[in-house]
């Protein structure tokens, strides 16, 4: 990584690369820690898939890692830990940090023509509070009882009951697996509900609270920076869609995150000091164990959790939509079709996103009359999604498409997002969701929006801005091979999940084969596992490409893609302070397909030659 400092005294290595307040370095730090967690989350996913494909088999090789008492097999409890941690890692440590942390930090100041974020120190902190979260979540596998196992949704009362919660103290239940290498052994935190619902759940809660604090600091920074630090001439309606998407995301996050933080803290209190926010008045009995009567409501958690987590799913895709829009315009060599509708539709998605959380709770015991309202709001959210899709298609219509790796990934985003959005409608329809809720249909939906859309958007963004980040170009042929294989294996892995869902295959099952009605779906499960392994192996190409290109890639000049936005005006990589001179913006970001020697005009270009401005 070559990073020249053109400004003032040369800071030491630590403050340049480690405790840096430079938004670009912080963005790159988020990028690399995300990469590590992407690998961890991927391995967890493959273990889940192995179990699903061969539920009764002893696992070759990896069976040895499991404690003796499990007999070379994965235990059902361990399986629940795997999918819980897979989802938690992917959502909170990969996708959100990549989209808001890496892209948000790296791109916002560069794209609006600022020298840095509004609050550089806060920005640095927003990365460094991730580290307690990283350490806590990873060590939770080794605590007594094992990692959290209540799903990424952490529903009480599976998650919140601890020995402290009024339980008569008693010996651990026979047959509970406990990790042989446990740290922090304290029986008083064991949960009768599940081994992972003891110390593991506490670690999970604390870790997510740290993530939330970091995201909050990031959001405050992004909002302030975008509102106050735009270069002269960069009025709001000239901002690239990437910046718009990050802005809307930051607002969403700032409004929704406090609710999650509160919910996590309430659950933590339930676990640590035996409050009963989520424990019902009658108390619970686990076998012969009884809790004291509570006074709370398990459903309260679901409302709080989804009030955050539904907006959060948009946090996990809006930035990718922005990134993809900019990449599509650049490589289509054509102005973005319907810039304003694109902005408004993102704002509508964000707004509606706050009144649809109940669609996760149609079967939860919420009053069914509310279901109808939530259904109609949810179905309406598909409208702005459709608007975006059609605008992307219209941008491509009449274009001259250049198939770079970044563009291919962006096009895959469009194609795959359609599938994810359409499957959402099945589950938004209340009577149909009665059947589909908590089946593999949802797992298919999640992976089409989060893996096949958001991750393709992220791949596109990393490839696109790599030259700006590192001053080197990524290897195009390798990138294309990685893209094609990911596209093929990704679909082979996730598409059949729809069929499994239609067959009624519940999610989070350790062994579906004990059900007769699921028997003939098992070949599909095996097929998906094989595809998933290939999909996982394919990602090695991406990692190789990144590291190879950082060191040996050909040098990139300022604007390798002939794009228009301000970051392409700064040197590659930009020095501390980004711009030699703050650019003056005289037009929107999508002036492509122009007559003249060059088919495009940068936002900061001063010539008015052949210029048609659209505001």
């Amino acid at each position: 990584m070559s990073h020249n400092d053109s400004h003032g005294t040369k800071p030491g290595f630590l403050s340049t690369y480690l405790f840096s307040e430079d938004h670009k370095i912080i963005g790159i730090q988020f990028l690399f820690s995300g990469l590590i967690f992407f690998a961890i989350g991927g391995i967890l996913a493959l273990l889940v898939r192995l179990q699903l494909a061969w539920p009764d088999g002893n696992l070759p090789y990896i069976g040895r890692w499991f404690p003796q008492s499990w007999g070379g097999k994965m235990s059902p409890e361990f399986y629940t830990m795997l999918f819980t941690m897979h989802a938690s890692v992917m959502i909170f440590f990969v996708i959100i940090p990549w989209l808001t942390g890496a892209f948000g930090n790296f791109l916002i100041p560069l794209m609006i023509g600022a020298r840095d974020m509004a609050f550089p120190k806060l920005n640095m902190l927003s990365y460094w509070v991730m580290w307690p979260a990283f350490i806590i979540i990873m060590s939770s596998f080794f605590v007594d009882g094992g990692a959290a196992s209540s799903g990424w949704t952490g529903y009480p009362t599976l998650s919140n009951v601890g020995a402290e919660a009024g339980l008569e103290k008693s010996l651990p239940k026979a047959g509970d697996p406990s990790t042989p290498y446990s740290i922090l052994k304290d029986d008083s935190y064991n949960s009768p509900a599940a081994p992972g619902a003891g110390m593991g759940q506490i670690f999970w809660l604390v870790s997510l609270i740290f993530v939330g604090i970091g995201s909050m600091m990031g959001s405050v920074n992004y909002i302030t920076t975008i509102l106050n630090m735009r270069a002269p001439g960069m009025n709001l309606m000239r901002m690239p869609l990437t910046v718009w998407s990050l802005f809307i995301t930051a607002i969403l996050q700032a409004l929704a995150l406090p609710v999650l933080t509160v919910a996590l803290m309430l659950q933590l209190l339930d676990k640590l000091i035996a409050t009963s926010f989520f424990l019902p008045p009658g108390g619970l009995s686990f076998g012969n164990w009884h809790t004291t009567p509570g006074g709370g409501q398990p459903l309260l958690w679901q409302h709080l959790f989804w009030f955050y987590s539904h907006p959060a799913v948009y946090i996990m895709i809006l930035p990718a939509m922005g990134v993809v829009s900019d990449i599509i315009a650049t490589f289509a060599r054509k102005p973005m079709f319907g810039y304003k509708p694109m902005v408004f539709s993102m704002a509508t998605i964000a707004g509606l996103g706050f009144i649809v959380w109940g669609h996760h709770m149609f079967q939860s015991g919420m009053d069914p009359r509310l279901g109808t309202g939530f259904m109609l709001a949810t179905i309406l959210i598909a409208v702005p999604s459709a608007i975006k899709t059609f605008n992307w298609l219209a941008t491509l219509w009449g274009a001259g498409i250049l198939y770079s790796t970044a563009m291919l990934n962006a096009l895959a985003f469009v194609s795959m997002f359609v599938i994810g959005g359409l499957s959402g409608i099945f589950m938004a329809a209340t009577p149909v969701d009665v059947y589909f809720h908590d089946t593999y249909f949802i797992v298919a939906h999640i992976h089409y929006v989060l893996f096949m859309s958001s991750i393709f958007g992220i791949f596109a963004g990393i490839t696109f801005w790599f030259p700006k980040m590192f001053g080197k170009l990524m290897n195009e042929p390798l990138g294309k091979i990685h893209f094609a294989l990911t596209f093929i294996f990704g679909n082979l892995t996730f598409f059949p999940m729809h069929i499994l869902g239609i067959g009624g295959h519940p999610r989070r099952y350790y062994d579906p084969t004990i059900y007769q009605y699921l028997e003939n779906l098992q070949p599909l499960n095996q097929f998906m596992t094989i595809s998933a392994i290939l999909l996982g192996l394919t990602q090695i190409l991406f990692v190789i490409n990144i590291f190879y290109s950082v060191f040996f890639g050909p040098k990139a000049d300022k604007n390798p893609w002939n794009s228009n936005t301000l970051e392409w005006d700064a040197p590659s990589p930009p020095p501390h302070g980004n711009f030699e001179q703050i650019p003056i913006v005289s037009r929107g970001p999508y002036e492509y397909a122009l007559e003249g020697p060059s088919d495009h005009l940068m936002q900061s270009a001063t010539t008015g030659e052949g210029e048609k401005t659209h505001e």
Partner: protein
Amino acid sequence: MQKCWGLLFAAVNIAAIALFAISPAMGWWLPRNIASYGADVDHLFNLILIATGFFFVLTQGILVYVMIRFAARDGLKARNIHGNTTLELVWTLVPASILIYIGFAQIPTWAKMKYIEIDTLFPVTYKGSNIESDLHVTVLGRQWEWRMRYPQGNIPAEPSVWADSGNLNDLHLVNELHAWKDARVKIHLKTQDVIHSFFLPNLRLKQDALPGKIMPMWFQPIEANVRYNPRTKVLEEIGSLPWEIACAELCGGNHYRMRGKLFIHESKQDYELWFADALKNQRLHESPRPQPIVAAGNGGQP
């Protein structure tokens, strides 16, 4: 070479459609419907499948077309177009009206499944446990089984009081749900520990059991799968596949093991013959497994 990318996208999409097309024939589809409202649910599923299928083909088709048609080559000039208000209106209003239609089409079936009485659309009346039924059963979820309790005479005097208390004169079974064809069955769903979800794929029905509450469910099977033989005292299966019960909400390590069976008797008489013998058997051989009181009398209201 440039065109290959469009073809790759086309191939993947065609494969996706092909998978949907062959799945029913492979038996990878909705399990057999046996609920009175199941046909409505399946109809709505098909309606959404057609609507989404149309937009799937439309958007993917356009995408593949533009990827091939507008791949950069000599002589192709990108057009300088920034937008078109008419088009924006079309692709806002057309999907919106289709979606709103789909949304409103769901309401009657949802009401039917959830005891919502709708004479006019609003205001809606929530009938809760007062709906007429022919058979009441309480189902208690616990780690990791379903405990069913059947009253003598099929309908208890005060259903909500009965559902909330234990009664040793009831018939207690584990993981077996019995009813008869055409009976309107009312389930009082409870849990004593964590959230479970009572999932009956063939009845297109699912409901979470919420700690501290008694959740109402109802269904009416339109097909039978067993006949009781009073002489041999065995249940003879008359269907092909057994109908199963599953748990659909993560409830701990053995979540997947909460498998139950659904027995729909040919007739009320058949059910009652079986019930009498089963109850006699329980008195002779087993001590019933009492259900703890889990809700302080919320009367079946959620």
